């Protein structure tokens, strides 16, 4: 097995809730609470879950856009959590990000050429002509014309802007791209264009993706492996086909059942789970899913289930899996 591009161990982020003039922490939002995973070169790991499950926080932690409370983030074997800003620099170019909102994530006052060229300016000592050439080549890769370099973001549609964001992330030839809901703001017809583009680029450059999404159907198309998160924990992780075909965790089952199917003949009685996701400010004791789980029993309310191997490459955290069938 090749060494992973990214390896995350015991990653935790607790945000303080501050009160008063002294800004004393009166409570902690346990956004990410002990998460482990690896990503191999050229692989797409999808983080799935509902709002507040911590998936976006994980994405930001991996880039150290948010500082972790504890845990290790290893890029090519080096733990980057303790590096200073200047020591971080060489690692920054290995990992780039594509954001959810194609409107807010591009500076409206910069031309597209400057936006895509900025990473090159920061990390590579190129002459203007050479830089422009590189920018043109990258724009072509994402399906934009070279003239786009001279225009401003407002002149482009949402899908085209997302291509600009992808071009910027590609500029430094990173090993890993962290993409936080990159297609959820786009219309379906455009969403398909961007998903296809991401898959083509992965093939061409051997990119690894950490792909954050709430949409299982999108994940099924782009992912190799899936990690399902609920309230700061990974509840199930494994190869895409196995997890979707035979989900082990009741939450994964519920997510799959809830996804609407584009076939009017397939209307069926669904496993509709009740209630909303509880607040991560005060997560339920024991298994965090027990308040909504249709199969809850005594032990779930007291003991946190551990993420255990259930098949080669597959892990799930549920007490039911310990029960004799």
């Amino acid at each position, binding site marked *: 097995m090749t060494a992973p591009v990214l390896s995350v161990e015991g990653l935790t982020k607790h945000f303080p809730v501050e009160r008063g003039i002294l800004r004393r922490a009166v409570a902690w939002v346990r956004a990410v609470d002990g998460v482990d995973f690896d990503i191999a070169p050229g692989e797409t790991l999808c983080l799935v879950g*509902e*709002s507040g499950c911590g998936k976006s926080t994980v994405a930001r932690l991996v880039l150290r856009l948010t500082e972790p409370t504890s845990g290790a983030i290893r890029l090519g074997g080096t733990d980057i959590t303790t590096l200073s800003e200047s020591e971080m620099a060489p690692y920054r170019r290995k990992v780039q990000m594509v954001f959810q909102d194609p409107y807010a994530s591009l500076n409206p006052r910069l031309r597209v050429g400057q936006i895509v060229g900025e990473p090159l300016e920061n990390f590579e000592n190129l002459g203007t002509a050479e830089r422009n050439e590189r920018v043109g080549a990258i724009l072509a890769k994402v399906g934009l014309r070279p003239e786009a370099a001279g225009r401003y973001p407002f002149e482009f*549609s949402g*899908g*085209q802007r997302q291509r600009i964001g992808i071009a910027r992330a590609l500029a430094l030839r990173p090993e890993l791209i962290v993409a936080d809901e990159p297609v959820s703001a786009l*219309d*379906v*017809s455009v*969403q*398909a*264009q961007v*998903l*296809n583009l991401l*898959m083509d680029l992965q093939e061409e450059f051997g990119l690894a993706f950490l792909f954050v999404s*709430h*949409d*299982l*159907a*999108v994940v*099924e*198309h782009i992912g190799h492996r899936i990690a399902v998160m609920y309230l700061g924990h990974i509840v199930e992780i494994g190869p*895409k*086909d196995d997890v*979707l075909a035979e989900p082990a965790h009741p939450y994964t089952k*519920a*997510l*799959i*059942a*809830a*996804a*609407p*199917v*584009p*076939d*009017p*003949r*397939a*209307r069926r009685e*669904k496993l*509709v*789970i*009740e209630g*909303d*996701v509880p607040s991560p400010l005060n997560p339920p004791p024991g298994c965090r899913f027990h308040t*909504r789980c249709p199969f809850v029993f005594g032990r779930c309310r007291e003991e946190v289930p551990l993420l255990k191997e259930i098949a080669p490459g597959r892990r799930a955290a549920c007490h039911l899996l310990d029960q004799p069938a």
Partner: protein
Amino acid sequence: MDAAAPLLSVEDLRTHFFTVDGVTRAVDGVSFTVNAGETLGIVGESGCGKSVTALSILRLLPQRIGRIVGGRVLLEGEDLLGLDIGAMRDIRGNRIAMIFQEPMTSLNPVLTIGEQIAEAVRIHQGASAADALARAEEMLALVRISDARRRLGDYPHQFSGGMRQRVMIAMALSCNPKLLIADEPTTALDVTVQAQILKLMLELKERTGAAVMLITHALPVVAETCQRVIVMYAGRIVEMAEVTELFDRPLHPYTRGLMSSIPRLGAAARQKRLTEIPGLVPDLRKPVIGCAFAPRCPLADDHCRAEAPPLTEHLTAHQAACWKAGEAA
């Protein structure tokens, strides 16, 4: 078919937006009917005119900018476009109710949940404050908010997104409307909550007998909830059919493109790449000559680019606006 007159009949509706950049033809000659008790879905991508159609029916367009420049909207035979403000107010929230996309911003943050639901009942049905509040409690229980009596005194911020959308549904159904217009009611919600809300809406529709006009960008949501579907593109209706018919035999190339570009669970093994619709939605400030979809259509020829196709019946109760309806790509 049904001999009874339709509940709502929209005839050649045209809504334009007048801005400094020019005139946008947001809705450009749309005609359809909603029958009593049916669930009609209106699908399309951003800017296709689906929400503006809904806002035009209720005459809630942004003042001065948005104007209905032609057509009729008949509710049980009465043209809503000719009513004065007072008469229109008697209709909104009473005979036609609406649920909006944003459960976070469509409730008043400084009024209690109970006051907000009771308000409509008091105004439209002349109920006393006590009776209106009792009705509010009944409605909250109906949308399955536990401990309804106590929660009447809560404010919107004390409710989660899914619960706020339940409150919106309770409010919308409190006066027993004939028609419920739901504009992307589940788009802002998580999938597990989305499933709960759609199920609840359909159950309550059965109970109250209201017709539902569901506006959404998501074909899967339509497949799961609607009886009849309208597909819109660039301010016009491009296809209209009963739901299974539409999914079995989509006629318009745009509908086909939409269907094949949706990622489906379980389909990835069979088809690795998603089918894209190339290109972009047209700019509605410029006059559209010919079929608006022609620049993105794999079948388009000179006829399509020169003359706009009318909406015509190609199969039984299945209409499409395409010169090449049903032809293979």
